[in-house]
């Protein structure tokens, strides 16, 4: 990261190679189109580059930090460019799956982690999973979700809380979160 801060494009290329697929996967899940996702990822990585990669270790892993930038970019795109179509796609609705290039040990481990998180999410009651997906992958606020689902805002916030608490228990049991 220090080399990235120093403005070394080669070092930044390593960052992209390490986290580009995860960034694209998140963007694709949120945008629902390959073109939209690529625009989001490009903007996100360029903003990271322009900022000199001001990563703060206390905020979590580099990957979490990058993905939070990607998510914010996607939400900006939803809100400012009115590209909301496709953002609430289900996993089944996403086409154009591309096989990964090289499957390293780290990648295998990452896929196992991903499977665990997906399983935990899908084991939630449907109404709780729905608010998490709308909030996290759709970028909607609790008030927007309440309006969309015709529920009181307090109920939406309550479902968010119950869902995250259950997810935490599931992921803790699997050793993913503390």
């Amino acid at each position, binding site marked *: 990261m220090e080399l990235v801060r120093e403005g070394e*494009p080669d070092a930044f290329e390593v960052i992209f190679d390490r986290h580009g697929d995860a960034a*694209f996967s998140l963007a694709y899940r949120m945008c629902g189109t390959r073109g939209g996702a690529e625009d989001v990822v490009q903007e996100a990585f360029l903003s990271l580059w322009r900022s000199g990669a001001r990563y703060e270790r206390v905020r979590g892993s580099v990957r979490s930090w990058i993905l939070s930038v990607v998510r914010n970019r996607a939400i900006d795109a939803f809100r400012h460019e009115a590209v909301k179509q496709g953002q609430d796609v289900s996993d089944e609705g996403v086409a154009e799956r591309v096989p990964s290039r090289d499957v390293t040990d780290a990648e295998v481990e990452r896929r196992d982690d991903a499977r665990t998180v997906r399983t935990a999410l899908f084991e939630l009651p449907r109404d709780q999973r729905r608010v998490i997906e709308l909030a996290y992958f759709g970028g909607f606020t609790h008030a927007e979700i309440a309006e969309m689902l015709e529920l009181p805002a307090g109920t939406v916030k309550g479902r*968010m809380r119950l869902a995250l608490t259950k997810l935490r228990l599931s992921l803790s049991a699997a050793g993913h979160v503390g």
Partner: protein
Amino acid sequence: MTEGADMSGTHDCGGDAAAYVLGALEPSETEAFRKHLDGCAVCRDEVAALRGVVQALPMAAPSHSASPQLRRRVMQAVREEPNARTARRRWPRVAGRWSGARIALAAATAAAAVIAVLAVSLSGGGAAERLIPARVAGIAGSAQLRVAGGRGELIVRRLSPPPRGKVYEVWLKAGGAPPTPASVLFSVNSHGSADVGLPDSLRGVSQVMVTAEPSGGSKVPTESPVIVASLT
């Protein structure tokens, strides 16, 4: 227990922690909850506990590979554009262009030290430094303008972050003329702090102002200023 009620039954601050870590509160609620966190250890603990869960959520997205074309596009743009550190080294060249505003956003904090050095060197090294308190309106925080050798540095502390999708933009106002962009966009760190170097001379400038503008900045202010520093 009803949905939204506290699981322990002894503490309920409205159940905003989960919505907060999901980024699902409205901007005003986010700000209010951040203030609430300062004084509520229970909510701080809940936020800390749930944050790790939210950080794991991206893994639930189906796995895809970024295309080689995307990689090429990103790296081509990276090689063509200086980042904050290299922009600082090239400051005199990029600072005068409006397109430099996006770079200045990133470079603002890093450039502050350079501006300070410039200010001293331009003034012969001995110019008096003025610290001008700035008025902050409608948001939390404090601000002051440090002026030396005709150059300025805006220093903000505990300032509310700009609303989602917006950045702070700096404007220079001379007499009765409309404000002109200072080619500087900035945000604040997690403590609400930023030291923002202003690239242009402040000679003839009567006010330095800050407004919240859409990402990328505006050519004219679209909102009332949240910070005003008067030099006269």
